[in-house]
């Protein structure tokens, strides 16, 4: 029988994989995708909790997180594009003009 812990396990693994991607990848766009993955992982857990524990709260929260994520993506991509226009790169390692 698939229970709550399975869903939570998948969700938290997705979160971990997303974090892993953020750590590993150098392409800003991919990093950003991984961040989206992490947000989404939270959604899965929310829905799972909501389902197994009852109540609407989790579901409604997911609605908000999706909206927030969408807005964030829009803004983030706009920044990345603007930066690409200036620097012609999206590689993390080349974006370190600000240091020390």
């Amino acid at each position, binding site marked *: 029988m698939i229970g709550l812990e399975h869903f*939570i396990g998948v969700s*938290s693994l997705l*979160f971990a994989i*997303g*974090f892993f991607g*953020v750590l590993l990848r150098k392409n*800003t766009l991919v*990093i*950003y995708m991984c*961040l989206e993955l*992490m*947000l989404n*992982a*939270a959604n899965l*857990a*929310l829905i*799972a*909790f*909501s389902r197994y*524990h*009852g*109540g*609407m*709260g*989790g579901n*409604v*929260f997911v609605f*908000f*997180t999706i909206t*927030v994520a969408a*807005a*964030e993506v829009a*803004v*983030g991509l706009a*920044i*990345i594009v*603007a*930066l690409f226009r*200036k*620097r012609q790169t999206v590689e993390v390692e080349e*974006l*370190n*003009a*600000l*240091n020390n």
Partner: protein
Amino acid sequence: MSTEYFQKIAETNVWGAIAPELALGILALALLAMEVILPKVAHGLIPRLAILGQLIILGVMLTAGSSGLGYTGEAFGGMLSFSETGQLFRAFFLGTSIFVSYLGMVSLEKKTLPQVEYFHILLVITGALMLLAQANHFVMLFVALETATVGFYILVSYFRDKAVSLEAGLKYLIMGALSSSILLFGIVLLYGAGSNMALAGGSVDPLNFGNLQKFLAANPSDMLGLLGMLLVISGIAFKIGVFPFQIWIPDVYQGAPIPTTALLAIASKGAGFAMLLNLTTVFSPLSEWLYPLLSVLAALTILFGNFAALTQRNVKRLIGLSGVSHAGFLLIGVIAAEKVDWATNAILFYLFAYLLASAAVFSVLAHLGKEDDSELTLDDLGDLAKRNGFLGLALAVGIGSLAGIPPLAGFIGKLLIFVAAFKAELYGLLGVAVIGVVVSIYYYFGIIKAAFFEVWRYQDEDEETPEEPVPGESLQLLGKLAILVAVVGTIVLGFYQSPLGSWLAG
């Protein structure tokens, strides 16, 4: 779930209580509208209108009543909870916003960038932060926080003609999104724990602070709750700039436009503490873990911020790192608040002092900043006192207050925190704080030194340096007024706190 239930909840939507936020939203929209309506020549008026509007809101809010505009307790289906502290935070954010608006006006005038959008977003952020401070529910908290954060992303990268601004924006974006995910996951875990009806204290709406606290009180050793708390705290730590989530601060502060830097430094930090103060109540059943954690963080934060700033020459990075140490001091206050009731007031006083001092400092930086203010170093402050005494004085007062030197407001802030810490018997932290203060003197003094002490060096060398155009001379009346408010406020609050007495007197 009957309609009556929802009806009852709908009745708790007391819009009057959030009139300031509403007014800010309307003002924000009005600014956009005005850009369309007003002729191009009059666009310069818009920032001034924004400031004026906010001043009016602030004025009305302050006169309308000391606590929640007459409302207390929960509202909006438990989303908000009005309290005196929240009211003060509202005033704090609004005040910050006014100063940032002024700074934005100064900085944007030098630019050929869209202007109105900046103020629009700023106002929305402020509104969101004001709600955040009164949030009583994690959904509200998350949404308000994200609204503000997304706004910050934009404002940080606002100077898109400069690569550093965009780079800072990107860094902030990624770090911010990461921390948001962590925060969100933490909330989810709390939700997961608290919604479990099988456990004592479980409820259908565990994201409500009250409910969550009850749940945690019933299950203080619940791993999920503990993990959730840790993740939530780390998300907030990012906002405040607490070790080890402070690492992004110098880069972002350096790259961001000065008004945004100010906003980040003041409002973002304030928001973090507003949240933290609320959440420490929520997490009080877990204080066994929470307070040791916060204590370690506070100590590390103070030490890191101060030591890292020691050899920093870039002014904005320096201010950023000093801000980190201030976060540490404030954190001591938060920890002390566990045992000392009025420590919350101390934190607020500290924040207000910090606001005024930062306002003074950033105003000066905004006036000094040329095309590329991200490279503003201490050397650029050289002979400031000679070039423009007024700005020099403002810088000195601001820095002095940040350094916690009497008779400036910053000192009273530190004193209150210290007394609170002593009352709460946080001796170790107090020791660290003393070290921090002493170390900090070095770099704060370095700024003063750069701005004042080398003034006459130039005369000694008999160089025929052509007088540089004095940036400060273009100070307008508004500018002078703004700086004067910050300076006078800082000084007066240093020895005469009676204006704030009603809440500082406990």
